[in-house]
């Protein structure tokens, strides 16, 4: 083969392999989350903070991605609609925004699964799903668990310890709930969640990318989103492809502005920088990583949380406290003396991040920061 032929062949291969926006399709699908239409009604979930699992003239099922969610309905017929909500705060209530009245639960008091029966007439209806005091600034506690993957058979050990944590509002997830992201795995993951006493708000990880397009968003909602709880902002980003899609970066700019004067927690699966740079379990581009970290620092982000690396790391990027916690049970990093674990954080909208600790599932005492 001549040198010229080698050159042309390789150049062709380079272009054929190139992929600069692997997360574009997923990011565009985020825009579809929380919207659904049926013959008798349309549903729109504010900011796409819930996945519409099913919609008919009798039933609307939602999987919540946030503690507080607004739902608008455009009803074209007189209906008796059963509203089923999963992954809800145990104290969640349904309020009709136009009248301010709280609607009575049909079932699920104190549970993460709840239902209501709504009598609807034609017109627009606006509801808010929120716990009492969810919008009032104050101190609260949340946990972080990521990278369960193939260890789903052992997840109940972890949930038992999470349930034993006092005054926990919710669990946050930085991706890799499953090994491949296939539907049966997502179904199994949801089934196992039935014993968890608090909702689990997550983004996806690279292990959810086995199916194309990933089924994750149909089940657990958006990959990129922001919510606020008791005055603290939480921004979840899709870094499962070792990059943030430029469209998601546009959204991030407005989310950073929203939280500019508040305590702000940002979570994603693959960290921009790996503390062990020679390993590079991180963004594919160090320049993109530094660009993101500079944006977060400029916006005064208080805490960054990551998964992907199956261990525990505490460090700082551009002065922002950063934790990698991939202790859900997936093949652990050896010789790190950590093993399965989750993290617990105390935060306050006025005072910032108050404390963090690592709770080891299999052994050892908690690591307090």
């Amino acid at each position, binding site marked *: 083969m001549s040198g010229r032929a080698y050159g042309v062949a390789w150049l062709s291969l380079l272009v054929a392999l190139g992929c600069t926006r692997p997360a574009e399709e997923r990011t565009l699908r985020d825009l579809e989350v929380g919207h659904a239409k049926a013959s008798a009604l349309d549903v729109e979930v504010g900011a796409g903070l819930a996945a519409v699992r099913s919609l008919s003239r009798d039933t609307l099922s939602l999987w919540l991605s946030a503690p507080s969610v607004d739902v608008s309905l455009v009803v074209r017929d007189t209906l008796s609609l059963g509203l089923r909500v999963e992954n809800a705060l145990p104290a969640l209530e349904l309020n009709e925004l136009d009248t301010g009245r709280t609607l009575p639960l049909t079932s699920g008091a104190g549970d993460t699964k709840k239902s209501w029966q709504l009598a609807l007439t034609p017109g627009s209806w606006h509801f808010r799903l929120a716990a009492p005091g969810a919008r009032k600034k104050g101190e609260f506690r949340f946990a972080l668990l990521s990278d369960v993957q193939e260890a789903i058979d052992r997840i109940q050990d972890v949930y038992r310890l999470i349930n034993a944590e006092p005054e926990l509002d919710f669990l946050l997830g930085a991706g890799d709930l499953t090994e491949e992201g296939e539907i049966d795995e997502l179904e199994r993951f949801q089934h196992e969640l039935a014993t968890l006493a608090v909702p689990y708000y997550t983004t996806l990880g690279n292990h959810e990318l086995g199916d194309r397009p990933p089924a994750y968003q149909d089940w657990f909602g958006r990959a990129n989103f922001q919510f606020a709880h008791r005055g603290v902002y939480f921004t979840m980003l899709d870094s499962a492809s070792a990059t943030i899609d430029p469209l998601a970066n546009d959204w991030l700019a407005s989310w950073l502005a929203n939280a500019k004067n508040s305590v702000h927690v940002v979570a994603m699966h693959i960290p921009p920088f790996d503390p062990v740079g020679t390993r*590079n379990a991180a963004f594919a581009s160090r320049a993109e990583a530094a660009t993101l970290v500079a944006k977060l620092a400029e916006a005064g982000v208080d805490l960054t949380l990551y998964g992907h690396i199956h261990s525990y790391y505490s460090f700082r990027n551009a002065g922002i406290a950063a934790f990698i916690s991939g202790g859900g049970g997936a093949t652990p990093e050896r010789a790190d003396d950590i093993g399965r674990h989750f993290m617990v954080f105390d935060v306050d909208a006025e005072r910032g991040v108050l404390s963090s600790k690592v709770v080891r599932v299999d052994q050892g005492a908690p690591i307090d920061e």
Partner: protein
Amino acid sequence: MRVSFAPVRGVAGLLLCCVTIQSAPASAAETSPQLAPRSAPQSAATPVATPTPAAKANPLTRDRGVAAGLAMVPGLALHGSGHYALGHEKTARALFITEGIAVALTLAGYATLRASGNSRHLAGPALAATVFGAGLIFASFGADLYGTLANDGGALDSRLRAPARFESEFGYRYVADPHFSYGGFVVQSLTLREAGFRFTPSAWFANDSSNVRYRVEAAYRLQGLEPGQVGPLDDHVEIVLGALHQRFLPEHFRRSGVEFTLDTRFDFAHFGDTLRGSFIDLSLGYGRAKVSYDLAGLQIPSDTDDLLLARMGLGVALRGRAESGSEVRVYYDHRHDDYAAGLLTPGRISGVFGKLGADLRWFFTPRLGLLLDAQVGSAFVGGLSLLFRESRLQPGASSR
């Protein structure tokens, strides 16, 4: 701005298939390669390659097309199959042993990564072993295919190599990265050599002034030709110290670092004359950088960041009217801190791998040449440079 490369990729994939097919010579009429040079060397250079025994009188085939087919099947698994079929058993054996070493290296690296759960203590060396192993696998396969198909009748034997004392580059690169506003860059570099020492400053300037990258390399050649010496092969071993400074003005950060690498080139002619003109480049090292943030009114602490530097390239010297030093090379580069950075894929694995690249150096006169360069990582980088160097062979140059 959204740039879709899907149609381009489709066309490029087809082009790749066509080039691969058309590159195979219509070889039914070709004879077994004659390894003796067509003309005498220009100096008293001693060939470095051990003369390979002539091909067996009764090889499995004399048809290069058939041999190339065998180099692919079963050659994909048994490297050297093409040479074995043509009767070059020694070369075939060397390629097969190289493949064995490469597979062992890859498996050892991968097994270490798996067994250690990507341990912070082992990930760097294990990744380096995996990268080198995979690169060597590609190289031994590619070399077999090259030696099976190449048929220049020994034209390269008369082409001596001589490192230039002075070489400069001036060119243009386009970087297509959806995360950054920059696009075009002016690229300049200068290489000065004296005895075993090399000094290479270079710079990339974004046309819109949003980005600049300065780099300087100081190297010492432990083995290989030095300016004033000529030889038929360009094997070398260099230790390289590098320093880098890059400014991302709109993104408000700077990256400054130092690095150390060991760069080597091994000419496959050592394995047999059919491989004359092909070579493998290997480079391994470590880099450490400081990332400083320039945010108005904010005191942001800097970060430190380290890098595994590993590069594997397979190259071929150009023939015909191309002057000495002309070559085309394909490579894998593990570094993640430059414009092309690391590969992104739609599937589960992104972030770990570095980039793929190709470069073509074509000297159309003894002094003047062109460099065509393309890389694919998380961005596409490509462009063209004009090269100028001192004449390749100095009067009175000694051979080595």
